């Protein structure tokens, strides 16, 4: 009896250490995550400005403003459009091609070659986004390599595709930069997912006379569905936060309008123009969009696991 009480108290003592170990992180997140998001919410209900330090309660005026007014030519509606188009235009090709590449890599006979290709595809991810944007800006120059190669492929001569001038092409250009930088990363995510599928299943399929194509559609893809959904949502979340590429492009003379993604609009409205209240309202909307997606991600990853 006595003994039992003693062990109990030792465990209690130990448990206290556990709480103690988590306190530094808890404090950090309280100050640098929870407080700011609450603060952003309340700031979004004021007309706070950086310069004249006013801060009056305006209710939902900022939100109404964002959806009805032009915000000095760079409306929030346009930012939503730009972000949505960028996200869809980047993450769908990225996920599809990353999946294909991962499947192809897994089928290579030599693991050495597969490892080399993996590493090579991943190399652009090592460069910082600013460097990536800088390289591609030069490649997209009217006299640059991309125009030369496009002319070669399209069998035209001296045609300028206006990569940084035409507003549609400008959007495509930012997508290409992003795709280039992150493709390797997503290939590796898929390879991890594929590696978890036991090889016995493939062997059984081969014995049964299934072709590669058939195996891919009927076996690999269904088993990979949870990974694919998860990776897609991750890629979407990543794309929604894009900033550096668009910022670099506009700083170097590209038009802001077509590629004015939400984060860039927050930056310009809040920091450059000092409209903190209005920028906070944008932040809250961005947060809500990402919250829904993250919620989806968590619920998918919980329920959709495959058992072998």
């Amino acid at each position: 009896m006595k003994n039992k009480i003693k062990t109990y108290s030792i465990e209690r003592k130990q448990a206290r250490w556990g709480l103690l170990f988590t306190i530094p992180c808890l404090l950090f997140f309280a100050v640098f995550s929870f407080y700011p998001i609450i603060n952003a919410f309340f700031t979004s209900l004021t007309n706070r400005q950086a310069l004249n330090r006013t801060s009056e309660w305006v209710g939902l005026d900022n939100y109404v403003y964002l959806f009805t007014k032009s915000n000095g030519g760079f409306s929030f509606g346009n930012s939503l459009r730009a972000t949505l188009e960028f996200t869809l235009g980047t993450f769908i090709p990225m996920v599809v091609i990353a999946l294909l590449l991962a499947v192809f890599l897994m089928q290579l006979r030599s693991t050495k070659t597969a490892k080399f290709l993996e590493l090579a595809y991943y190399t652009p991810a090592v460069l910082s986004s600013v460097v990536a944007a800088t390289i591609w800006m030069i490649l997209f120059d009217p006299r640059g390599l991309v125009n030369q190669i496009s002319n070669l492929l399209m069998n035209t001569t001296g045609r300028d595709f206006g990569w940084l001038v035409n507003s549609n092409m400008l959007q495509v250009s930012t997508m290409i930069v992003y795709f280039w930088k992150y493709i390797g990363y997503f290939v590796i995510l898929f390879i991890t997912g594929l590696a978890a599928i036991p090889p016995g299943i493939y062997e059984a399929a081969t014995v049964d006379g299934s072709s590669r194509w058939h195996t891919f559609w009927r076996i690999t893809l269904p088993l990979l569905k949870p990974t694919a959904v998860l990776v897609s949502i991750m890629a979407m979340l990543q794309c929604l936060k894009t900033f550096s590429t668009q910022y670099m492009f506009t700083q170097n003379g590209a038009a802001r309008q077509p590629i004015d993604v939400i984060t860039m609009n927050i930056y310009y409205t809040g920091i450059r123009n000092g409209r903190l209240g209005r920028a906070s309202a944008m932040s809250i909307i961005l947060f809500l969009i990402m919250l829904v997606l993250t919620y989806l991600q968590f619920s998918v990853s919980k329920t959709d696991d495959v058992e072998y």
Partner: protein
Amino acid sequence: MAMNRYIGKVTVGEVISWIVLIVVLLFCLLPIAFMLSASFMDAKQIMAMPFDWLPKKSFFTSEGRTFLTNFSKAIHGNNNNNMFFRNLFNSLLVAISCSITTVLLASLCGYGLAKFRFRGRNFVFMSIMATMMIPFEAIMIPLYMVASMFKMMNTYAGLIVPFLVSAFGVFQMRQYLITFPAEYLDASRVDGLGEFPIYWRIVLPNCTPVVATLGILSFRNQWDNLLWPLLVSQREEMKTIPQYISKFSEEKQTDEGALMACALLASIPMFILFFTLSKYFLGGAAVFESRKG
């Protein structure tokens, strides 16, 4: 049940997959090769049609250029204020500090969550997970106001403090440490080691793979960070490398060679890390996948 079709000894599928693999390989590597060779060229050769992949010797001798002209321009900067090394130092300092603190704080917290049963543990864990849903981009305006309130503008504290630890790091550490054998811990307790020394001398040294992965991830995030430094660092000597490149490219738009040299120099630290620790870079994705479980 169509069987595979063959061309000679290889299947059609194999030929197609090789073509795709090689096209993407070129797409991934050519821009990097371009950066390498263009950093030795002058603007005229970079914009030559058709593009010549090897820097021509004649360009080094013309107009007083040498092999390293572009690099010296990149280092001297626009108005010869030599901020390159200062900004490189800032970036390294911020990235290294953040990766060290992330590893330490996240492992401590992850260890507490994985191996101790205290009241409210689930609540603590869920709150930390909840912060993963708050993107930095959504809270940068309030953080900016806090930073200016506490006079953290243009200081290292301002650059480092918001990134001391990440919720994702805590999560990774917890997942890894859940499988840490409890016998080691109990044995150390019997040997009379205190709880903190157990963490410091038994737990931390035994989770090298996850420490390396997390450290690299955090280093890379800070090395890549442009948005936050744009907000808090306005003084030249407090800027980081992404800001340096951004400014350099605004002012040197026509000197592509110097720009590429600048980009190349700024990438060297990451390349060194990548080629020495590539398994942890690639492993990072694997650990990320554990988020599924």
